[in-house]
């Protein structure tokens, strides 16, 4: 089966295809002029959604029913006037569950979530998050106060999560009607007087394991964490092999909930691969130990991988760099193939489940 990757960049959307996962065709750019923060194919109907931003025309969402040949744009997307907030950027799109026809979720800045029930034509802001009682304690990270992670529990149709930088992780047990902070044990070292606050953590990426939904992973500004109780408690994991706890993306193995991949950076004040080496670090034991994987990755290399620029599916894992390369593994990370190079800075990578 052919593999298709949707690669969002600073200069439009590129589509990578391969029949053997070794040689790749690159097409694009689509959505020229738009910064594609995230693009994803909806496995329910094959439609492609892109969170698109322009410094002239603002943030929006584009949808294609023909694999990028033509696009339509959201008609209604904004925040309530009485919220005193205005939409800054669109960041992340999460299609709803099977059976939730037309439903999608959209995360954006400043710390906002939208729901669509008409396949992305109109979007309604989720009021419970806009008016969350802790909002005054939230702060923007370097990329703005972005809602960059939206995760749906595969067992419970009402349980979902969002992660906002720098507000932390929030869990809903009622389909988004209300939200509970889920940051216990997650450090906010930049608050030396109170390094474990209820909210304000700078989570960089949050994932729920698709086959074990009580298990959550996050790459944070202040470490790598795992939770085994739906985010009630978190364990910090970056000892035993990781050169740094700082990084942005995290990827999983859908067949093994003890496996995770991270791509550390030297630190918050020097956001580049440590020791001039691009390395993916993998754990096989739930984060108790980590091993460096670098076969097929360039060295020396001083690069950075953004929070949306890594993903995974049943076939393997994928990531793209700010220097415009995309790497693919099909053997659990043991070796990597450079699927594309010299693209614009890569903002996001997703595999499309097209037949």
């Amino acid at each position, binding site marked *: 089966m052919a593999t298709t990757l949707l690669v969002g960049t600073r200069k439009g959307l590129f589509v990578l295809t391969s029949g053997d996962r070794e040689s790749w065709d690159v097409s694009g750019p689509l959505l*020229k*002029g*738009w910064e594609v923060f995230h693009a994803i194919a909806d496995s329910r109907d094959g439609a492609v959604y892109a969170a698109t931003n*322009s*410094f*002239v*025309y*603002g943030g*929006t969402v584009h949808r294609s029913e023909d694999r990028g040949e*033509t*696009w339509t*744009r*959201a*008609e*209604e*997307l*904004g*925040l309530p*006037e009485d919220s005193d907030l*205005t*939409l800054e950027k669109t960041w992340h799109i999460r299609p709803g569950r099977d059976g939730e026809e037309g439903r999608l979720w959209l995360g954006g800045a400043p710390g906002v979530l939208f729901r669509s029930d008409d396949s992305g034509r109109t979007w309604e802001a989720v009021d419970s998050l806009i008016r969350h009682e802790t909002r005054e304690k939230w702060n923007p990270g370097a990329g703005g106060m972005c809602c960059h992670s939206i995760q749906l529990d595969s067992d419970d149709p009402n349980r979902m999560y969002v992660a906002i930088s720098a507000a932390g992780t929030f869990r809903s047990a009622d389909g988004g009607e209300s939200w509970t902070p889920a940051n216990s044990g997650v450090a906010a070292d930049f608050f030396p007087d109170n390094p474990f606050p209820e909210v304000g953590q700078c989570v960089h990426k949050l994932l729920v394991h698709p086959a074990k939904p009580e298990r959550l992973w996050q790459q944070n500004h202040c470490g790598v964490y795992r939770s085994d109780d739906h985010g009630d408690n978190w364990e910090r994991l970056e000892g035993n092999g990781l050169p740094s706890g700082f990084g942005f993306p995290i990827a999983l193995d859908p067949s093994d909930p003890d496996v995770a991949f991270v791509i550390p950076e030297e630190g918050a004040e020097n956001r580049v691969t440590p020791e001039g080496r691009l390395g993916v670090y993998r754990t096989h034991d739930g984060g108790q130990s980590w091993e460096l994987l670098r076969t097929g990755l360039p060295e020396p290399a001083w690069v950075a991988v953004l929070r949306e620029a890594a993903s995974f599916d049943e076939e393997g894992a994928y990531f793209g760099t700010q220097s415009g390369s995309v790497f693919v593994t099909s053997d659990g990370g043991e070796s990597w193939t450079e699927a594309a190079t010299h693209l614009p800075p890569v903002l996001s990578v997703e595999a499309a489940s097209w037949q």
Partner: protein
Amino acid sequence: MLAAEVGGQRRFEVDAETVAGALRSLPVSNLVFDERGRLRQLVNVYVDGVDVRDAGGIDRQLEGGEEIRLVAAIAGG
């Protein structure tokens, strides 16, 4: 970019009483205006070659036959 949003069409003929009304009738109006209905800061509007911000603003009345041009402002370095 605006033309690409409407299949490459670059010219529209519209009936409107004001410049704002003409812009709001375009299929790209939600790119030209923000969610509060304000003209985006980096979108320049020219009416018969004159920047509308210097000539009555976007609520300026139209008489008919004017040519309105939308131009993305020069920004950045």
